């Protein structure tokens, strides 16, 4: 316990190991970046290539005849009803290899977005209080509840698909976004709780006591004291739930049928029919699909860094 005045910093002469460390960091970052980015870069590059070009050997890292047809198909299409006249004969084995489900991509993306947002919000509403209770309140069946929650996530999804389907059907939610919101909530919330319990427990108990003595009900303690301090973990939860919903395929495949409810992954998968597969187009879709999550990430990333807990207790 030190009594040095606020803001005092020990002079930090960079020692040799520290320099080595900085270098290591730099090297590491380069390596890691290539590992993470190389495949994605290739994804981007190929999304600007024609199907004929991407199969060339050796691969064209830079498109020789770059094309925007994939993206055009995604962003510019006519919504009119399909008739013999208006049908695209392009499906699948002739012309530009554009799957005719291309035009469903944006609506599906919008569905995915709505679902993801809803799942995020519900996760926070439902997960935060539970996590606080499990982390900071001593009550009978506290451990029990932790393991109950764990239990719901240990069975392989593939075995749960059919029972899940029955549930959704009996709730009358087939082919509605609520089917996805509800199931995604159920499959994400356990881990949301885990993340938060872990973080809440890293916050000193005395803060909890102090708040309650200062006149906070349990709920106020949570909202006034713990939430502000838990921001980093909340961001983790937001990203986790958003992206899980964004990615989920199996359940969406089973629960949705029409454009009303089909989500991005389903449409992307539908680009592979028994007649053809358009890698370049799927890659374009992949590139587009990345944008919203990355925006979300950039929005929230900064809050992860805000390490507030320092100085909570002791000196």
């Amino acid at each position: 316990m030190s009594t040095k005045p606020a803001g005092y910093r020990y002079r930090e002469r960079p020692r040799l190991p520290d320099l080595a460390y900085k270098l290591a960091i730099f090297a590491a970052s380069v390596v890691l970046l290539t590992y993470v980015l190389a495949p994605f870069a290739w994804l981007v590059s190929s999304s600007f290539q024609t199907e004929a070009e991407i199969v060339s050997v050796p691969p064209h890292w830079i498109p020789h005849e770059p094309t925007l047809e994939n993206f055009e198909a995604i962003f510019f299409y006519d919504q009119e009803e399909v008739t013999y006249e208006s049908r695209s004969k392009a499906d699948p084995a002739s012309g530009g290899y554009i799957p005719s489900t291309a035009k469903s991509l944006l609506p599906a993306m919008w569905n995915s977005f709505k679902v993801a947002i809803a799942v995020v919000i519900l996760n926070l509403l439902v997960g935060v209080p539970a996590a606080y209770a499990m982390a900071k309140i001593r009550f009978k069946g506290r451990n029990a509840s932790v393991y109950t929650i764990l239990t719901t996530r240990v069975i392989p999804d593939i075995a749960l698909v059919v029972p899940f389907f029955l549930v959704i059907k009996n709730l009358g939610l087939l082919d509605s976004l609520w089917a996805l919101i509800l199931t995604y909530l159920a499959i994400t919330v356990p881990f949301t709780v885990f993340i938060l319990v872990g973080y809440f427990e890293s916050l000193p108990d005395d803060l909890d006591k102090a708040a309650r003595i200062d006149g906070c009900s349990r709920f106020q303690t949570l909202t006034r004291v713990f939430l502000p301090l838990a921001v980093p973990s909340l961001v983790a939860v937001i990203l986790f739930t958003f992206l899980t919903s964004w990615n989920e395929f199996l359940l969406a495949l089973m629960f949705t049928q029409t454009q009303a409810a089909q989500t991005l992954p389903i449409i992307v998968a539908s680009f592979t029919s028994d007649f053809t597969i358009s890698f370049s187009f799927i890659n374009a879709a992949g590139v587009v699909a990345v944008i919203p999550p990355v925006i979300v990430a950039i929005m929230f990333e900064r809050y992860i860094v805000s390490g507030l807990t320092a100085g909570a207790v002791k000196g």
Partner: protein
Amino acid sequence: MARIRFDNVTKYYGNVLAVDKLNLDIRDKEFVVLLGPSGCGKTTTLNMIAGLEELSEGDIWFDDEIVNFMPPHKRDVAMVFQSYALYPHKSVYENIAFGLAMRKYPKAEIDKRVRDAAARLHIDHLLDRRPNQLSGGQRQRVALGRAMVRQPAVFLMDEPLSNLDAALRVSMRAEIKELHQTMQTTFVYVTHDQAEALTLADRIVVMKDGIVQQLGAPDEIYEQPRNMFVASFLGNPPINYLEGELVASNGRMAFRRGGLTLSLNSEASAKLSGQEERKAILGIRPEDVDDRNEPVEGGAIHGHVNFVMPIGSDQFLNMKLEGEELFFRVGKETRHRNGEEVTLAANLDRLHLFDPETEKSLLWD
């Protein structure tokens, strides 16, 4: 206005007994210190007053209401934590104001109280800082301020000074004492530091293993310890013990061990008369001797000085007598040196006697 009464309060953690049948009556405006080694149940007791701990059996009364199940935020108590537990995301001002804000005090009132408290604690220049920009001492004052402004019916402190360095600790003691004077409310203060307890308390509750060992005013506790634990827990350096037996010598009861015989004062020997041959442990505090070099009737302690420790005001003698090493404090008039033989005169009115089995005092109960 708060009188706190523990009525047979027992607290288990799982099946570990933390507090056992505690009966305690804290008067309004009283300054009570719960004193004991760590794990003695003192903090648990404090938490039960605060409502932070659920009691397993018995009742706690605030004045004439049972508050067993009343959550902390419904009790009119304030608390200062050993770790301070400041809200890292709030400024000093907000930290202090929080309790009042939660209780819906008018803005102006809050502001007034916060600023008064800050001024009193000399932290008014820090109000906009965040806790992590404060030194330990400053944080401690903020924690105090946070509790002060509440002007609660009960003011709880859990080892508030133990994270401070020695100098600061002493000065803060004084401030806390003064705080109690001015606030005119019930203080319950937990510490393991007997000096703090003795300086601050109106009454001290000495606890061990969840059981109250003794309850009383500081002097009483110090001078009439009910058992060996209490006797040795207070006082620094601790009380000396010598095993021996009671004998009758010229009409009085006396304690004897080998060549050492100390005869008891009248009331003590009256109390113990007829218990010759009884095994007993003598307790004698280091300061309860006096060195003049002529022998004293029935109070002579003759021994060999292992070494001398001057502490400025007086000097400590580590003496060997009857095979035991004892500590005594004597004035500086005569300089003693290592290895010499000395005779000290025990203050016969201040001898303590304990039962070797029960460790209970033979003189006071």
